[in-house]
Every structure is written in structure tokens, then in C-alpha cells.
């Protein structure tokens, strides 16, 4: 299943609800475009909801890192919400768990941007 991205605003935070796979050729470019679009609009707070992302490969991991550094370099913050077990395990294995700010609960994640 290809990646679907839906965007919504919650208390000044743009929440991107992702569902599907983030792999080379499936979703990685969409994430990049979505992040660039938000940064171009001056959005500083981005929350990626990965609750419905059931598969991510090394390219997808690289894309998450790219989104993170793009935001950081532009003075914006990117955080992650609701990791599935597979994605959680991959972030732990690759030590990316130490890079990202990760939340299980949306309200807590939104509050953390303030």
C-alpha cells in the first residue's frame, strides 16, 4: 500500500497523519514535498503521526531523518507520534530513537510544542 498523507491543524501544530508504507519509491518523496510545503508556509511545529505506518525501510528511515534535519535547519520542530511496534523497533535498532522526540499520546505531543 502506498503512503497516504492527511494534514490537519491542532493548536498551532500541523499534524500529518501518515498511513501505508514509507519506502524507496513509495512515500519518501511525498513526505519530503509535504515538509517543504509546510516550511515554505512558515509552519514551525510539525507532528508526524505514524500510527498507521506499518512498514518502513532504510530509505524511509533516511527520509524521516531528512525531514527532521530540514525542519531543524529552518528553525522548525518535527516530532513523531504513535509508532507501530515495527517502526519503534527499527528506530531503536538504528539508534534514531535517540534523535527524535517521540510521543504515544497526541495531546501530550501537541502540548510539548508550547
Amino acid at each position, binding site marked *: 500500500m502506498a503512503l497516504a498523507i492527511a494534514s490537519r491543524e491542532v493548536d498551532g501544530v500541523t499534524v500529518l497523519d501518515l498511513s501505508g508504507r514509507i519506502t*524507496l519509491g513509495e512515500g519518501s518523496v511525498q513526505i519530503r514535498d509535504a515538509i517543504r510545503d509546510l516550511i515554505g508556509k512558515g509552519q514551525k511545529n510539525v507532528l508526524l503521526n505514524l500510527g498507521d505506518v506499518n512498514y518502513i525501510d532504510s530509505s524511509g528511515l533516511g527520509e524521516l531523518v531528512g525531514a527532521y534535519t530540514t525542519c531543524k535547519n529552518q528553525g522548525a520542530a518535527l516530532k513523531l507520534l504513535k509508532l507501530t511496534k515495527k517502526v519503534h523497533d527499527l528506530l531503536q535498532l*538504528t539508534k534514531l530513537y535517540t534523535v527524535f522526540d517521540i510521543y504515544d499520546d497526541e495531546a501530550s505531543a501537541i502540548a510539548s510544542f508550547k
Partner: protein
Amino acid sequence: MKLPARLLRRGGGSSPRPGPEEVDTNPVSAPKQGRMSFSLNSTMESVGEVEAAADKLAEEAGLDEDERFRVTMAVREAAVNAVLHGNEYDPAKLIAVTLENTGGALVISIADQGRGLDPETIPDPLAPENLLRGTGRGIFLIRSFMDEVHFRQLHPGTELTLVKHLASAGEKT
């Protein structure tokens, strides 16, 4: 083991080209324990086909869902390496794939016709200075998910052989 019909073609295209090695395929009647080989074009579609074949191999070997995920992902990463970094999507180059259930292990080899890969030159993706790199995690994931990984230099190209011991499946966390 059964494969999608698209995998059965030889040479991966409509016009025959010299492949990395001759194809020996009899998937329709192949038992769970057995071997199959095929060659595919250097496309992302091929990566999906190799991934699906590996998932089928792992499923028929009776691996649990977590182990199936690990094997399938490792094979996908190896296929991406072959198509993207090895053959660089060159339509004149093929990837050669062999999937085997020996009874004691799953053995998957993927060969490209690229410039060659020296695994010693790949930076450690866990090193603090590399954590924010956008690439370089594929081989690490393959090594993490499989019991054995072997590199063989071809002329030209690289062959990766991935091994999952069936007795050990499920023991890794």
C-alpha cells in the same frame, strides 16, 4: 513454492539479454524445500517482486510474523542495493536472484552487474556523526536481521548471500 507469473520470465524483459547467470526455474512444482533462480530488470518493480518471493519463502518455511518481516526486509534492502547502487537502474543490467530452502536454512542470494561494493568502506550508521545521514542503513539492517551475510565480488558486480537458520528463527528479538 509458487511465484507470480511475472517472475517466471527469463531475462526479465521481452528481448533476451545476457544475464548474470543462466536461469533455472521450476517454481510451479517446487516443494517448500527447494531452490529457484530468476533474473530481473533493474527496476523498483523488480524489488517488489523479489520482496514478495522472499515473503513467500519465509511463510512456507513456517517463520513467525516477526521473522518473516526481518527476512523480507533484509531481502528488500539487498534488492534495492542491487538495483539502485549496483546497477543504477541501468536497463542493460540485470539482477540475478536465487531463493533456497535447504531444510536447515533459508539462503537468498542477489547479484548485480554494477561496479562492486566493498562492505568495509560503509560507514557505521550508529556512529554519532552518522546518525543524521539520510543513507547508509541498508547493509546494517541486513546484517541485523539475518544470521549470515556474505559478500562476493563478481566481475563485474557484487553478490550478497543472506542466510537465516531455520532452527534459530524466533530466537532473535
